[in-house]
């Protein structure tokens, strides 16, 4: 009984971590757009390359935030949640 419950729990935690990383799609598209526009801007005005590059990297790093939230949730689900939920399960089944 306990083994079955643990198996289901660990599997669902893994699935949840995978679902959480769907959050990576948004920053990918957003940063791609940002870099594309930055390339256009550099092509139009090559003399302001350094300004555009630094602003773009800054914006990319900020756009990453939502993806990182998903990553943190996934990491918590994989590394932290099993320890917590195992104790709860054992208490519940006994």
């Amino acid at each position, binding site marked *: 009984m306990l083994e079955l419950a643990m198996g289901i729990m660990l599997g669902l935690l893994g699935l949840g971590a995978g679902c959480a990383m769907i959050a990576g799609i948004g920053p990918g598209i957003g940063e791609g757009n940002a870099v594309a526009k930055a390339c256009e801007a550099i092509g139009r005005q090559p003399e302001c390359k350094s300004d555009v590059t630094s602003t773009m*990297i*800054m914006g990319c*790093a*900020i756009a*990453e*935030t939502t993806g*990182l*939230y998903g*990553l*943190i949730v996934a*990491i918590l689900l994989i*590394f932290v949640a099993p320890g917590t939920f195992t104790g709860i399960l054992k208490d519940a089944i006994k």
Partner: protein
Amino acid sequence: MTEERVPDVKSTRFRMTDYALIAMMILPILACLVLKVLFSPETEGISIAGAMIFLEVPAPVMPLIITESQVNSWAVMISILGLCLYLTHGLTAKAVCKRQLAAEWIVEKSEKLVRDNMGGFFKEWGPFITAIMGLSAFSSLICLVGLFSPTGDVNVTFGWAILVFFLIMYYKFRGGIWNYFMGLFKPIPVFAPMNLIGEFATPVSMAFRHYGNILSGAVISALIGGALTGLTRSLLGFLPGFLGDIPFLRIGLPAILSIYFDVFSGVMQAFIFAMLTMLNVAGAVPWDDWNKRRERRGKQALSPN
């Protein structure tokens, strides 16, 4: 005008001080390495774990836990202090030592950065911003010598973010506490919960951004290390004796990825943390309300530039 006393660069005393300061830079890191080696449990393979707990001091409410991240951040702080003292050792008007040029470059760049991003009113903030940036960058870079990055612990980055949060709040309250609380109900009172969440979202997002970047780098490095160990075992496992146990593929290959995940990402996040600190603090000042309050008390009006 008095004659400036030029330090004798070749003298024994000057050199001994230099060596002492260099030791001050290196010894804390070495001490951390020794501590890590002494406390690490013997494990097979790669483990992904948080900061090790060195010591639990009994305290009234809850035990005070001394973790690896605290020890490492103190080591980084002492090292940075040693670096600063080393760079400024023997300062003269005519720059006798080459290191004075590096020190001047750092100071000039930080003053210019702060002035460009925060305006003239905050021009004295250079040391604070540089301290945050340096501590963050060196804390992330410490993983290059094999130590746990303090910034890979959410408590450390959250501590910095709370400090920034208090600074933001201090400047927001300059326009009057009543004005600040009324500002939460703009543009319509329905927005009050969202505005309140927005106030607290700033430090949370700053802390999680920094922590997430460093932690993801560490996790990916550990996964690649484990994968390369397994690959070596299956490819070169036929070698006789102890040669089969050495993970040859782990020599040098992970360093290529480390350039992005540890060096670039760490320095980038330090810069972004400092940049967001500057923008948030400088953008938090309610100039109109503050100047109205100052006018009522008969003080001079302030300007952001």
